[in-house]
């Protein structure tokens, strides 16, 4: 009896594989996200305010590096973007409820993984929080006891302390500064090799929508371009907002 079952399984599998090869739409989405987006011509995107990844203004379309990326993706698909503003947790929840098709806002792989109902793309850009020094300043191997300027809204003081440094508010007068690696060139600083934190950035998608995932990831591979430059551009534009309150 068992050989019969096995043979049936083998034949079934072979036919499935053949069908899979002939069908351009493989893999498919259990909930048909990609099909729906193409049919209706609308992609629903949750935008989470997180300068300079996504900058949500009171009115008008969101700006920021990832908002730009989403618009390019929508253009690639030939659809328009329906933006929905949401805090991070609600954006991921909306993915689980299938209320949105994509969530952006500088999400990290770690943050999305913690949320059961959402999945994420491959880490298409990696950033790190580094300690940088002014050019010409001696670059130390460790922080032990040194004063490190921490930019506003960075929440890096604890990380500096953990490395043995002394965090102070960024006044521009301190030779060592904690900041995201992509911001260093714009400020004319040189990274020291001391890394406080590494982040793997992803876009958040509904779970299990594999055709949709493949399309988004393919776009990221082909078109994401130099995210560091994008981030710097939006960082500069939103200058006053990132300053101290």
């Amino acid at each position, binding site marked *: 009896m068992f050989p019969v079952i096995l043979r049936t399984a083998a034949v079934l599998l072979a036919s499935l594989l053949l069908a899979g090869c002939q069908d351009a739409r*493989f893999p498919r989405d259990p909930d048909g996200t990609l099909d729906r987006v193409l049919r209706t011509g609308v992609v629903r995107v949750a935008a989470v305010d997180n300068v300079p990844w996504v900058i949500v203004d009171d009115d008008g379309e969101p700006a920021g590096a990832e908002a730009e990326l989403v618009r390019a993706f929508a253009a690639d698909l030939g659809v328009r973007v329906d933006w929905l503003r949401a805090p991070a947790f609600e954006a991921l929840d909306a993915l689980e409820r299938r209320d949105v098709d994509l969530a952006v806002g500088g999400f990290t792989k770690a943050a999305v993984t913690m949320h059961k109902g959402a999945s994420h793309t*491959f880490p298409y850009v990696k950033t790190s929080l580094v300690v940088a020094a002014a050019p010409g300043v001696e670059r130390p191997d460790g922080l032990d006891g040194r004063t490190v300027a921490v930019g506003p809204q960075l929440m890096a003081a604890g990380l500096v302390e953990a490395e043995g440094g002394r965090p102070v508010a960024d006044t521009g007068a301190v030779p060592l500064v904690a900041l995201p690696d992509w911001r260093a060139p714009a400020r004319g600083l040189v990274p020291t090799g001391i890394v406080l934190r590494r982040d793997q950035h992803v876009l958040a998608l*509904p779970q299990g929508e*594999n055709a949709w995932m*493949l399309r988004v990831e393919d776009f990221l*591979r082909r078109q994401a371009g130099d995210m560091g430059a994008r981030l710097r551009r939006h960082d500069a534009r939103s200058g006053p907002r990132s300053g101290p309150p």
Partner: protein
Amino acid sequence: MSPHRPPRLPEAQRRGIARARRLQWIWLVFLASIVTVIYLALGNSQAMKTAWVEDMLSFVPPIAFLTATWIEDWPPDRRFPIGYIRVTSIAHLVSAVALACVGLFLVYDGAAALIRTEHPTIGSVELFGTSVWMGWLMIAALAYSVVPPVVFGRLKMRPARELHDKVLWADALMNKADWMTGVAAMAGIVGIGFGLWWADAAAALFIAVDVLRDGVRHTLAAVRDLMDEVPRSVDDREVDPLPGRVRAAVADLPWVAESRVRLREEGRFITGTVYLKPRDGTVDPHRLAEAESMVRGLHWRVDHVSLVAVPDLSDVRAAPV
């Protein structure tokens, strides 16, 4: 008369064990390569994870076999005056219990994924400049994992029968069934590709139930052996004919009035006692020793059997065979 001699395996069986050991070493190398390939392709697929755990588990029986055949040969010593032949039965039990526990865990894991309606997400990788769905890589890895176990499973069956090695037999069965696991996992991934989110968890559950069933069956068989159940054939299907042959051979002796055999399986050997009532009420020890070596000559597996002459069989606690 020394009732417990160290087992002397005939030359043919010694060579058989050496061959089986070589086979297992080669198999371990293949298994390691399979486990590595599957691990590298492991994504969010529940079925794939389950298949991988099963492959990891496949390490237990060969290692148990190699350990048991190594220890089994140690000569009896002060601490273990009977020798080490029972180590094979223990190896059988250990691998069976491991199998059953993991089967239970996998059933729970697969059922939980179904109940939570987890939609497995499988991403893509860049290959030769294009985005390739990782499902294809998983299927390729599984396809590689399907062929070697079938070949090795078949190769192990004959020595397992010839050597009456239940560890080797269980291992061969597991290997033969292993390819179903690979196919089921592939079906799960193809199912995901067709947008059937539950196909993967269902395939995982199917594999897990199979693992659990194997584990329970072998655990029960190993426990029965350790409980001195009447010896059974290596595939556990029928009662071993050897004890019957021993009884018949003893009953055929002209000076034996009545006899009872109390035999069990220890590893690959049949051991125990034959109680006999001499026709004249007494027996020459030389005659007894002669009869014992006749019994041992029946089969290489009959080695630790001692003959005991008693005046009355009614005190012997042995079910008639």
